[in-house]
C-alpha cells in the first residue's frame, strides 16, 4: 500500500516536470504561428510532411547547398541554401537529418525576396544536411554530409 502511493506521487510530479521541459506550459498565444508538429517531428519525412504536407522532393542541381565537409564545432555550422537561380521560390527549409528533431528552420518568401538563406546551425553528430526548396508548387532538394568532430547539442 505504501509502495503504491509512493509510486503514484512520483509519477504525478514526473509528468508535470516533463510538461514543463517540453514547453507545454508556455503561453499558447506566443507560439500561435509556430509549426509545432513539424518542429517536433523525429525524422526527416515527418518534418517535411509537417511543413509541406508531402515528403516527395526531387534532387536538383539548381538548389545549391553550401556547408563545410568537416565541422570542427557542430554547435556553429555555417549552412547556405541558394536557390536564387530558380524562379517562383516560395519557401526554403533546412534539415539536419540525425538531430533529435531534424527541422532547423523554415523561410517563406514573398514579393521582392530571393530564394536564399544563410545561417548557422547546431549538429549533434556526423550527418546529412538537407536543403529543401519549394518552387512552383514542387519540392527540390540538395543534400550534403557534414562530419562533426565536436558535437553541438550539448550547447
Amino acid at each position, binding site marked *: 500500500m505504501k509502495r503504491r502511493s509512493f509510486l503514484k506521487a512520483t509519477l504525478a510530479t514526473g509528468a508535470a516536470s516533463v510538461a514543463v521541459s517540453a514547453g507545454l506550459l508556455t503561453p499558447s498565444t506566443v507560439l500561435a*504561428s509556430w509549426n509545432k508538429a513539424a518542429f517536433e517531428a523525429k525524422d526527416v519525412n515527418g518534418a517535411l510532411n509537417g511543413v509541406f504536407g508531402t515528403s516527395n522532393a526531387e534532387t536538383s542541381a539548381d538548389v545549391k547547398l553550401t556547408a563545410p565537409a568537416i565541422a570542427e564545432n557542430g554547435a556553429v555550422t555555417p549552412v547556405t541554401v541558394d536557390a536564387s537561380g530558380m524562379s517562383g521560390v516560395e519557401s526554403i527549409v533546412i534539415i539536419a537529418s540525425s538531430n533529435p528533431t531534424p527541422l532547423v528552420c523554415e523561410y517563406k518568401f514573398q514579393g521582392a*525576396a530571393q530564394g536564399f538563406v544563410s545561417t*548557422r546551425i547546431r549538429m549533434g553528430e556526423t550527418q546529412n544536411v538537407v536543403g529543401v526548396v519549394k518552387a512552383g508548387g514542387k519540392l527540390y532538394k540538395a543534400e550534403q554530409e557534414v562530419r562533426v568532430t565536436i558535437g553541438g547539442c550539448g550547447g
Partner: protein
Amino acid sequence: MSINIRTRGQVRGGVAEIKSLIRHPMESGARMDQSTGKPFPMKLITNVDVSVNGNKVVDAQWSANISTNPYMHVNVAANSGDEVTINLVDNTGETGSETFKLR
C-alpha cells in the same frame, strides 16, 4: 528588455544583402544544468520576419537547431534608401526589432 539585433544591409546590383547578428541563448529546454540536475528553461526565437518599406518579404520560423547568437543572411531585391525592418519573437514573449535604411 528587448532582444539585441545588429544588422547590415548592402545593395549590390539591385539586390540588398541583409545580414543580422542576434544576441540570444537559443536554449532548447532539453539541456541539463549539471549543478541542479534540472533542465535550463526553454528560451527560443520562434518567429522572424523581414519587411521592406512596410511589405513583409521573408517570414521565418526557427527551432533549437539554430545556433546560439543566431546569424541570418537573406537577399531582397531593393534599392538604396529603402527601409528594412526585422522583427523577432521568442517563446517567452520577448521581442526584438530593428529598422534601418539601405545605403
